[in-house]
């Protein structure tokens, strides 16, 4: 049988758009996604922390007349075990039939990265090692001898600095030669295990090659897996290659015999895997020592000094709070001006639209419905959502790029462990402060499915950007109301902080409760890399965070806001006997609302505010003023007057603040929960948890208030 007819790792696939397919592999946080973005011009999100790419991302680029398909596979330290990302990565490299696999490695910690490279050499010959972050290595006085590395591994090695696009040219050249098969073929580096193990592998390999026509390299790799006995990998191989490995009499026999021989020689099956791993790590170490020169042994000193402060017992958590407060403050203050600008622009257009509608003799009810209903709500959501997001996300992304977020997780992990959760949940909560929908998506960084689900379900317990201004307004009017000047803003800030801290405490409490009830389980192992600090690329951050997150979230919000605008308008304008549907709903909700120390209109506003939390206050004002469209008021004092006239007391204010933090997620977040969990059941639970918290808390405060105060 000729080699071509053999079942090989690189079965030819029917190629559609591209001439060649290239897989991009590597450890987490080595700049894979940066290379991907720079080559494809796409905006796959990157960050200085582990686990950004959870599914394969695909992009295309052209080079010298050929089209290449680039597949960014999840970053992993290894492809030998069975976490979700490792499986995706392994399956793609093994069975995705790429023409070449580029393994991106970090020049500053080459040794550890080589571990993955060596594992991949066991699967494919068409390998390119791309040594990234050479600039940082230089800064740390680490010298990497690329040629030497290439000589040892017998694969092409390219050095790049991914953030500088120009340096990628070499990589492109090598990709081309490898894909076209023009690269000189050498026998690629092969890991040599202990002699006894090598013999065992050989024996099984022989049987497998007798049974199936499989390429030698693949057969060797499969043999190791057979001896290892890892069922999930074996099942995947069976499925992909359409062969039988488990319960195959010949193979089973060979396996048993070899394992027995190994046992006689003192190598037990449990140890087998460990020996395999150890050999690879030791090989990586050996190669690393040969090709890297550390001119400055204490290269990490600066980072350690910063770490000592940022994670210190005394300052660690206060610094974290200050950082976050600073971000919120900049966001809220900074968003005011562009928001007002957008309001006035959209307002002017609205006037023109009304004029136009009159001009074409559009029936008034129709123009009102479309302009005051749909258009106004839609533009409202854009005006209030866009600016804070456009400010918050870049700031947050800078923290991300710096490498600060894993430190936050490190600082807070103790608390989360007590709640049987992962410290990484803290990072997702921080994202939740910006936007709960993003926070929910961010939960992908948590490995354990149980812990991830808990993080998703509790994310809404921290208030997002859309809820902050409302909280601040209420706190300013009712809690700091009697105080003037700077004192007022301090008092209202403290009040908002108290509510937020309550949110964080509730997150921990609910997480704990979930861990003890419907999502029973122990905290899984927590292994978190604290990457070196990196200088953020400010311009990139800006572009990336606006395009990746802001526009995306805004798109979802708009999709909900337009129909919601219509519904709100209809409910405010259609009525029976002079009473609008809105009022009728409010009256219906009144008894429940009273128990919660609120009124029916407030609850109604929260329900109709489901497209975006930002429109809750405008709806409340609309109801109180008997209006038929959303009410925009800049003057806090005037808002306070209206609210007081409608019976708001300090109790109402406190309960509204509580309910603002603890109520059902907005529509965008709910859709995201559905997408991330794939289940309406969990979406419903994600809806209920904060709502029940809010209702109970509000009833409690009302009860306490009535018992002790009045």
């Amino acid at each position, binding site marked *: 049988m000729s080699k071509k007819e053999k079942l090989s790792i690189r079965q030819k696939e029917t190629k559609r758009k591209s001439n060649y397919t290239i897989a991009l592999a590597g450890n987490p946080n080595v700049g894979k996604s940066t290379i991907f973005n720079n080559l494809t011009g796409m905006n796959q999100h990157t960050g200085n922390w582990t686990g950004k790419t959870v599914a394969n991302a695909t992009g295309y680029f052209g080079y010298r007349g050929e089209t290449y398909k680039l597949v960014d596979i999840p970053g992993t*330290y*290894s492809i*030998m*075990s069975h976490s979700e990302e490792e499986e995706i990565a392994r399956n793609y490299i093994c069975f995705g039939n790429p023409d070449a696999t580029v393994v991106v490695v970090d020049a*500053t*910690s080459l*040794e*550890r990265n080589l*571990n993955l490279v060596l594992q991949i050499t066991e699967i494919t010959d068409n390998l390119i090692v791309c040594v990234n972050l050479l600039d940082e290595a230089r800064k740390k006085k680490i010298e990497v001898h690329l040629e030497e590395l290439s000589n040892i591994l017998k694969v092409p090695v390219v050095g790049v600095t991914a953030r500088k696009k120009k340096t990628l040219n070499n990589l492109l050249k090598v990709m081309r030669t490898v894909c076209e098969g023009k690269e000189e073929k050498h026998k690629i580096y092969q890991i040599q295990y202990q002699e006894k193990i090598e013999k065992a592998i050989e024996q099984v390999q022989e049987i497998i090659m007798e049974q199936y026509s499989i390429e030698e390299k693949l057969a060797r790799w499969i043999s190791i897996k057979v001896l290892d006995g890892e069922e999930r990998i074996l099942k995947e191989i069976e499925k992909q290659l359409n062969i039988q490995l488990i319960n195959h009499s010949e193979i089973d026999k060979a396996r048993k015999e070899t394992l027995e021989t190994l046992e006689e020689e003192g190598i037990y099956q449990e140890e087998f*895997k*460990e020996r395999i*791993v*150890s050999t690879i*790590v*030791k090989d*990586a*170490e050996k190669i690393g020592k040969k090709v890297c020169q550390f001119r400055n042994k204490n290269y*990490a000193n600066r*980072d*350690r000094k910063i*770490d*000592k402060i940022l*994670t*210190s*017992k005394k300052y*660690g*958590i206060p610094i974290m709070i200050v950082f976050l407060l600073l971000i919120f403050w900049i966001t809220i203050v900074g968003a005011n001006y562009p928001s007002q600008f957008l309001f006035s622009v959209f307002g002017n257009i609205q006037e023109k639209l009304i004029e136009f509608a009159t001009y074409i003799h559009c029936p008034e009810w129709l123009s009102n419905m479309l302009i005051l209903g749909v258009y106004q709500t839609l533009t409202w959501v854009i005006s209030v959502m866009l600016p804070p997001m456009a400010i918050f996300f870049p700031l947050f992304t800078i923290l991300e790029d710096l490498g600060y977020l*894993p430190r936050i*997780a*490190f*600082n*807070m*992990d*103790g*608390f989360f*462990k007590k709640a049987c959760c992962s*410290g990484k949940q803290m990072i997702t909560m921080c994202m939740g402060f910006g936007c709960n929908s993003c926070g929910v998506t961010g939960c992908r960084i948590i490995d354990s499915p149980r812990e991830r689900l808990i993080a998703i379900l509790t994310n809404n317990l921290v208030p997002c950007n859309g809820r902050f201004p409302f909280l601040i307004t209420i706190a300013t009017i009712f809690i700091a109301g009697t105080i003037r000047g700077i004192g007022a803003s301090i008092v209202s800030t403290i009040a908002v902080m108290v509510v937020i801290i309550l949110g964080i405490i509730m997150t921990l409490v609910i997480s704990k409760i979930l861990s003890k009830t419907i999502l029973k389980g122990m*905290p*899984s*192992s*927590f*292994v*978190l*890399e*604290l*990457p*070196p600090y990196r200088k953020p690329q400010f311009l990139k951050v800006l572009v990336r965070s606006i395009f990746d997150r802001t526009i995306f979230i805004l798109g979802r919000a708009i999709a909900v806001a337009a129909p919601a605008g219509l519904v709100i308008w209809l409910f405010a304008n259609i009525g029976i006997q002079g009473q609008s549907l809105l009022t009728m709903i409010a009256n219906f909700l009144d008894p429940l609302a009273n128990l919660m120390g609120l009124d029916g209109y407030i609850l109604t506003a929260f329900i109709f505010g489901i497209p975006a939390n930002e429109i809750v206050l405008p709806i409340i004002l609309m109801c109180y003023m008997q209006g038929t469209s959303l009410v925009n008021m800049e003057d806090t004092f005037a808002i306070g007057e209206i609210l007081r006239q409608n019976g708001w007391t300090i109790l109402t204010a406190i309960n509204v603040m509580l309910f603002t933090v603890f109520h059902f997620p907005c529509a965008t977040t709910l859709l995201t929960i559905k997408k991330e969990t794939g289940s309406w059941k969990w979406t419903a639970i994600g809806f209920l948890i904060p709502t029940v918290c809010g209702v109970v808390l509000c009833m409690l405060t009302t009860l306490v208030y009535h018992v002790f105060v009045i």
Partner: protein
Amino acid sequence: MKEKTVNELQLGEIGVVNNIIGEETIKRRLLDLGLIEGTSIKPVLISPSGDPRAFEFRGSLIAIRKEDAENIKVK
């Protein structure tokens, strides 16, 4: 030399991994990070709440919780 766990190392004190014990999943993760026999490991940071600690080995800084670190025996 007596075998102890990496938890018994003081901040800044270097240990050499002798053995990794414990349940398969965590053992695998630690091995994947390059923690094999003979690896030097040094705790360098401690979280404000006392746990986890961050360890330096093979040029990386990795946070590991007490219960998980318990599995890393050093000499």
